Every structure is written in C-alpha cells, then in structure tokens.
C-alpha cells in the first residue's frame, strides 16, 4: 500500500498547506477526514462493492500527492466542441480555471472556484457543504475531503432556467499525480440547467483522481448532466456523485465512459420530496486491461416518484466491469415507479462483468423492476449481415453500435447527439484517428 503511506506522510507533513486556505468550518471537516483516512485508508477488497475492482494496481503505484495543492498559473485549456453552451469553464488538475475565479452572472447564477466561494459566500457554502457526503461517507470520500484544493461551485437561483454549462475536466500533470476535486452544485426552486462535462487527459502520465460532487435540487429544479470520460490508459478517476432531489424535481444524468485505466462512477440519489423524476443513463466501453464500474443507489423516501436506471456496456479483451445498482423504496414511498436495467456484451472469453441488481422495497403499492443481461454478439445476426456482403468486422460494428443506441437516443440536447455518436463509433472502431474505411461514416475525422 505504497500510495496510502505516501498520502499519510504528506498529510502529516503539510498540515498548514492543506488546511490554512480554508475557513474554519471547512478546516474542521477536513482535519477530521484526514484523521479518518489515516485510520481507515483505502477500502478493503473484502468490501462487497470493491471486491471486483483492481485497486492494487493503483494502491501500489506512486502518485505525487501534492501537485493538487499547487496552482500552476501557466496551465491552459481549450474547450472541446460542444455547441450552444452559455459558459465554458475548466477544472485542471483539480483547480477551477476561467477568466474570473468567481463571478455572478446577470441572471444571478454564481459560478466559480469552490475554494473562492468558501471565502466569499461562507454561509451559503456552509449550509450545503458535506451534508450529503457525511450521511453516506463512501470509500475515498475521506481522501477527497482531506486533500482537495478546489473544484466547481455553482449556484442557480430560483426560477433561473435554460443555462448550459460546459465543464472541461482535464488531467494535465507533468508527473504521476494524485488529484482530488470537490464540487458543489445548488439549484434553487424551479431552476434548470444543463451541464456537459468532459473528463480528458493531456499528458501521457498516470493520474489518480477522486472527483466528488454534491448536488442539491430544490423543489421543481431540473438538472441534466452529461459526462464524457476519455482519459489515457494510465489514469483512473473515481467519481462519487451525491444528489438530493426535492418534490417534482428532475434529475437526469447520461455518462458515456469511453476510455481510461479505471473509471468508477458512483451515483447516490436520495429523493426526499414527492413526485420527482430521476433518470440515470450510462454507457461504458472498455478493452485491454481497463476496468469500468458503475455503482448506483436510488432512494425513494416519499410517495409518487419515478426513477429509472439504464446502463449498458461492451467489454473487449481482458476488460472488467462492475455494475451494482440498488433501488430502495422506503415505507412512506407509496406509488413509486422504479426501474433498473443493465445489459452487457462480452466480446471475448477473458472479458468479465459482474452485474448486481438490487431491489429493496418496504412500501406495498409500488411498481418496480430490475434486470440484467450479459451476452455475446448474436451469431445469427452476424451471418445475416455478412450474407448481404458486409465484412465480419463491419457486421460486428453495426451490431455493437446498434446496442449503444438506447443510451445515445436518450440524450436530450440535439446538438450533442451526433458528436456522441461519432465518439462512440470511433471508440468501437478501436482507433480514434483512422476511419476512412469504416462503414459507420462518422461526420468528423481527426
């Protein structure tokens, strides 16, 4: 456990650097997290939710623990092409990067660095910060709270709607580095935004990233969150997302997990109001020795809400996947409609998926379902397509691409659909740069 020891040593030796830039209420949370991490460390492989994940190849490696704490002013970023956004910001090596560190837009939206927000709006931040994390305290939450330097702060006032934000989350350290990012997103009543996030990497370096987000949706608030993860084969991102969902609020996420050594997305949605709607979509494509995990928990606390989890994956070579989805329907959550489905295609004998659907229901008037399928390419369909003169490789691509359609078709921003299709096609093709001969005819060629 080389990494764990390095981090503990760093925490013990850099107390001032780690803690002094934050106000007391953060400092308290942080020092407690530091103590807890020193006590508990990384999750044990005996933990059911971590048994299937190869943590060893991260824990035994050296990542510089302190990069995160030093802000390199030279860092630059370019946005990827996402049309029709209102504002583009970046998180680079865990720091918020934009023209202004913290700003209030004309419509009242506050956007900027979380670190800056803790100083400028301490009361607001204090009301929300760590509330959801403290209730759950999942693996790596302690590490994230103990070490983060910054992240995104977003506050959307009551009735403000139609704002589209692009977030480029870039890994750009010149040495192998541990990076911790902390985000806080607050939507007041009847507020609505779209967020499009791209996780990417610039350097051929190993990054180990913990990305934590606490998201609060007040009554009737609506959040659509799209995430594209495409980082190098040396890097890992563990993301924990916490959502509090109020009455008649809508939470929609669609995460496209394209590339990385290890990608883990945990999403915990707690529906505390009535008549809310939660849709969680995910598509994961992994090959070589990659690992991709989705751990989902939707809790229905009150009556009349709807939730749907739909996750699909294609695993090639020796890739491994882990899907753990849970629906909890509490005693008061009558007339709940809750659904969950996980479908997988394994392309080789060595690829593996562990799919664990769970339902836990304490109310008696509910409609719930869960299901999981894992299969191979359909040989009958393959022959049918080849009999029409289409090559075996293209016949496979057609089928795999068709399999992803259900997730891509769920995208609600029309301008995002074609770029997403292109990314998925290129990924399935195995090469992002050679597509002259491909049957799928991407619109963009790089």
């Amino acid at each position, binding site marked *: 456990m080389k990494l764990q020891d390095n981090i503990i040593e760093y925490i013990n030796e850099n107390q001032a650097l780690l803690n002094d830039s934050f106000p007391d209420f953060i400092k308290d949370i942080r020092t407690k997290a530091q103590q807890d991490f020193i006590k508990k460390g990384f999750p044990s492989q005996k933990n059911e939710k971590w048994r299937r994940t190869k943590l060893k190849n991260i824990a035994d490696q050296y990542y510089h623990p302190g990069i995160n704490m030093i802000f390199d002013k030279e860092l630059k970023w370019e946005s990827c092409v996402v049309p029709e956004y209102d504002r583009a910001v970046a998180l680079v090596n865990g720091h918020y990067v934009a023209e202004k560190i913290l700003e209030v837009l004309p419509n009242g939206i506050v956007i900027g660095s979380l670190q800056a927000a803790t100083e400028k709006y301490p009361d607001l931040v204090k009301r929300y910060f760590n509330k959801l994390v403290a209730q759950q305290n999942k693996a790596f939450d302690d590490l994230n709270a103990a070490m983060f330097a910054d992240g995104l702060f977003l506050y959307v006032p009551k009735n403000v709607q139609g704002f589209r934000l692009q977030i480029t989350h870039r890994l750009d350290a010149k040495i192998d580095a541990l990076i911790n990012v902390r985000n806080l997103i607050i939507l007041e009543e009847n507020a609505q935004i779209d967020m499009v996030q791209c996780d990417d990497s610039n350097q051929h370096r190993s990054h180990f990233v913990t990305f934590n987000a606490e998201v609060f949706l007040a009554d009737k608030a609506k959040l659509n969150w799209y995430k594209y993860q495409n980082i190098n084969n040396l890097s890992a991102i563990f993301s924990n997302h916490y959502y509090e969902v109020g009455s008649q609020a809508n939470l929609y996420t669609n995460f496209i997990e394209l590339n990385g050594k290890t990608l883990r997305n945990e999403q915990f949605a707690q529906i505390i109001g009535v008549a809310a709607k939660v849709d969680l979509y995910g598509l994961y494509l992994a090959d070589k020795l990659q690992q991709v995990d989705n751990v989902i928990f939707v809790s229905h606390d009150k009556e009349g809400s709807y939730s749907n989890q739909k996750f699909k994956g294609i695993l090639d070579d020796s890739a491994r996947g882990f899907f753990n989805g849970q629906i909890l329907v509490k005693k008061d959550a009558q007339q709940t409609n809750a659904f969950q489905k996980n479908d997988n295609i394994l392309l080789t004998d060595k690829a593996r998926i562990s799919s664990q659907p769970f339902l836990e229901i304490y109310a008696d008037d509910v409609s719930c379902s869960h299901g999981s399928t894992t299969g191979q390419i359909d040989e009958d*369909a393959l022959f*049918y397509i080849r009999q029409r*003169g*289409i090559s075996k490789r293209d016949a496979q691509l057609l*089928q795999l691409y068709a399999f992803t*359609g259900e997730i891509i078709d769920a995208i609600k921003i029309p301008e995002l659909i074609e770029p997403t299709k292109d990314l998925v096609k290129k990924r399935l093709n195995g090469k992002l740069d050679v597509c002259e001969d491909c049957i799928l005819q991407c619109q963009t060629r790089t």
Partner: protein
Amino acid sequence: MNPILEIKNLHAGIGGKEILKGLNLTVNPGEVHAIMGPNGTGKSTLANIITGREGYEVTEGEIIFKAKDILSLDPEERALEGIFLGFQYPVEIPGVSMTNFMKAAIDAKRKYKGLDPIKPGEFLKMMREKQALVDIPDKIKNRSVNEGFSGGEKKKNEIFQMAMLDPDLAILDETDSGLDIDALRSVAEGVNKLRSKDNAFIVITHYQRLLDYIVPDIVHIMYDGKIVKSGDKELALELEEKGYKLVE
C-alpha cells in the same frame, strides 16, 4: 454457356455428422430450380453451405460459382460475388435501420467493384423502386431490420433486399412457409419480375403451392442428403400426389 453454379459430389455435415452425402447440382443462367424434400433431408444445410455459414464441414466435393471455387471464401465474399440467401427465418437486428443496413450492403458491393459509395439521392430512388416491386410499405425504411415485422413482411423484406442487391444466384429457403395466399402471391410476383436470362434461382420448398406462382424449369427431390430425382415442373405435382414414397 458456363453454368452459374456447379456442385460436384458434395459431402458435408456438422459436428461430425454427415448430412449431405454426395450431392450434385448444376444451375445455368436463366434457370429456376426447385428443391423439394422432407424435413431433415439437408435442404437448409445445402443453402448454408453454399453461402458459407460457419460451423459446417465440407469433407469432399466442390462448389464452383461462376467458374470459381468458392469453398474457401467467407460468407461476405460469396455474397459480393453474387450469391444471395433469402432466409427461412430472417433475423431481427435491433437498432440497425433498414436504410442504413441496405446502404452499407450496397456500398460494400460497390467497393468490391471498385466504385465509390452510392449518392444519397440515387440510393433513395433505388429504395423506392425496389419497394414498389415487392409491395412493402415505405415506413419499413426507418424501422430496425425485421424488428416487429409480421411473418409476411419479413419474407417480403428478403425479396426486397434481393431486388436491391441484384444477385446472380438467389437461394430462397422456404420463403413460402408461414405466408398467407396474398403474401405468397406478392413474394412470387417480386421473384418473377427479377427473373432474367442472366440470373438463376434455387427455390427450396415443402409445398407445390409456391411453384404455381414461381414456375420452375427443373424440380429436384432431395432425400437423405442427395438429389435422388430430377424432372420438370410435373414432378412437383406428382410428388404432391404420391408423397415422398415416390423416392423412398
């Protein structure tokens, strides 16, 4: 005149079990052959082996298509050479629209011939023309291949694809099974419109009924992995009357 297809002394099977036991068949351009025979006699196996489906072992004999030995070719290469199979059970391919599927197939064929991909306008015109030929509704264009199609629509869709791809040899494997008389008639009409002096058909069927509409030049009776009797269209009528004891 060279035959389109020549099968000589074909022995083949699956999993060590011999199904075809020395089959001979010669098909010339312009001909329609009907192959009839009881269940389990190897009719569909023959179709699968001609089209190159994986999993079968050919232990003896040869299949010559347009003067070329095709036994070592992949299914797609045989298709590109001009062999089409109308499936007994057309496969549903969720998420792949008929339009995209046909565009991919046409472009694969054009590429094989050294041509550029078909222009969208030209492709749509072609789709419309061929649709009219087999009387299938326009809406299937946007639907996934065979998904949610009725039995009749699936079979018509096979003929539609055949019309699009314009093969030299089309093998129709029990295209008549599960069809009502109207669907049967429109499938047969489609085939008849596509008949020419340059192409050939092998129609595999259990029933003489289809042959009222697609009139064959030669009828073969297949039994226990071999063609045991061949004749003109009257043979089908005789078979209908006497049953397979005719050849037992």
